[in-house]
């Protein structure tokens, strides 16, 4: 069957299994990206604004993790949260929480590294003003985040792209369990291995459509922010 027809057929029929896969994919990725931005942006702002012991170590580690293979991240998290691991007592292995954690670990370095670069440029420009006004550290970080809000949309998009397309780590820690931890990418992997190429392609088309929708939505937010800034 034509993958496009199959994809649209499944979407139009609101196939329950497909809907649950799509919603789980979005919930896992949005949660991971949201947490990575909330934690990563202030870290990026601090790294760009202040010199402190261990700063270069954090920068080096976050830059190294940018290229970390997802399966390796998945393996580490598996070891940590498996029953025999130090965090086994949490009981989150093969749950969506483990998948969120894996995606969070994968996108946190992106949010730190990219935001640090954005903030560094802005911080260099604003430092004399901050020093003159004796702006405290917290306000400095808040101003940097607020002033670079348009660039942060791009960072959020980059994080989302990495999270939603990730397969290795969520497969290891989530287990690709039907009706429980199956997301778009693991479902595509499964259908491909079963020889259901049309279904796999259909799921791929849906995944692309989701990525496109998120991109369009972020562009609209970006345009709105730009308009607001001009009319601010």
């Amino acid at each position, binding site marked *: 069957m034509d993958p496009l027809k199959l994809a649209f057929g499944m979407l139009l029929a609101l196939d329950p299994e497909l809907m649950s896969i799509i919603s789980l994919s979005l919930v896992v990725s949005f949660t991971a990206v949201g947490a990575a931005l909330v934690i990563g942006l202030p870290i990026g702002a601090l790294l760009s604004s202040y010199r402190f012991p261990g700063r270069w170590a954090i920068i080096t580690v976050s830059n190294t993790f940018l290229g970390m293979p997802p399966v390796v991240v998945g393996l580490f998290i598996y070891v940590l949260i498996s029953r025999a691991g130090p965090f086994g007592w949490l009981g989150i292995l093969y749950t969506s929480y483990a998948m969120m954690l894996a995606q969070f670990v994968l996108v946190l370095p992106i949010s730190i590294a990219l935001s640090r670069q954005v903030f560094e440029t802005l911080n260099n*420009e*604003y430092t*004399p*003003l901050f*020093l*003159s*006004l*004796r702006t405290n550290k917290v306000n400095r970080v808040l*101003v940097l985040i607020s*002033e670079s809000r348009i660039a942060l949309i791009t960072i959020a998009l980059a994080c989302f792209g990495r999270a939603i397309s990730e397969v290795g780590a969520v497969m290891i820690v989530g287990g690709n369990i039907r009706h429980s931890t199956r997301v778009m990418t693991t479902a595509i992997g499964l259908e491909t291995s079963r020889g259901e190429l049309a279904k796999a392609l259909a799921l791929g088309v849906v995944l692309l459509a989701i990525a496109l929708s998120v991109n369009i939505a972020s562009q609209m937010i970006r345009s709105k922010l730009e308009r607001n*800034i*001009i*009319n*601010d």
Partner: protein
Amino acid sequence: MIDKKINFIIQAKDLTVFRNGKTLLDRVNLDIERGSLTMLLGHNGAGKSVLLRTLHGLLAKTDGQINGPPAKRQKIVFQKPILLRRSARKHFHFVCPGCPDTDTEAWFAHAGLQAQMDTHAHQLSGGEQQKLALIGALASQPSLLFLDEPTSHLDYESTTAIEQMIHDAHANGTTIIMTSHNRAQAERLAQQVLFIHAGQLLESRAAADFFDKPTEPIADNFLNHL
């Protein structure tokens, strides 16, 4: 010890700044009278901006002493205004957080910027941006104001408007230390002149005396080419 006479708003003794193997300020001694308007002159790279920024606390001194008003009583306006990416009004409130709205409007009116209050600060013209930076600095009523070539990139009209604002601030009792590369402007505004060369303060005199006949040959040469 620095002589803490009441009529000096800021004093520096043996002020030295050393960076990357270079001496940027070399044992500078100065006393700035409260309420005066002092023009800091010198060639490019002489150390004018370094001196202003060090006196204001933006650059750390390597050695020497500075005795001036508390940080919140001093302000600086840079050659290229540093403005946040928000409306002129919001930028103003950031640099003057306690200013009531009525004062805000009065300051914008003083600068002739009433119509631009809600314009994005980066969309203002160069002259308007510098006026915004200046009223942002003046609104908190500093006792000491540093101006680092505030009109260097501006046209005649904007320069005149800025000079009038500087004149008004000085008339209201603000002590001003500014740098300029414009001799006519320096002669129009200055009461005192500090001449700096290669990080050393070579002259500190009344403006009329300095422009009449500088003591140092290098200052004389500088004036002839200004």
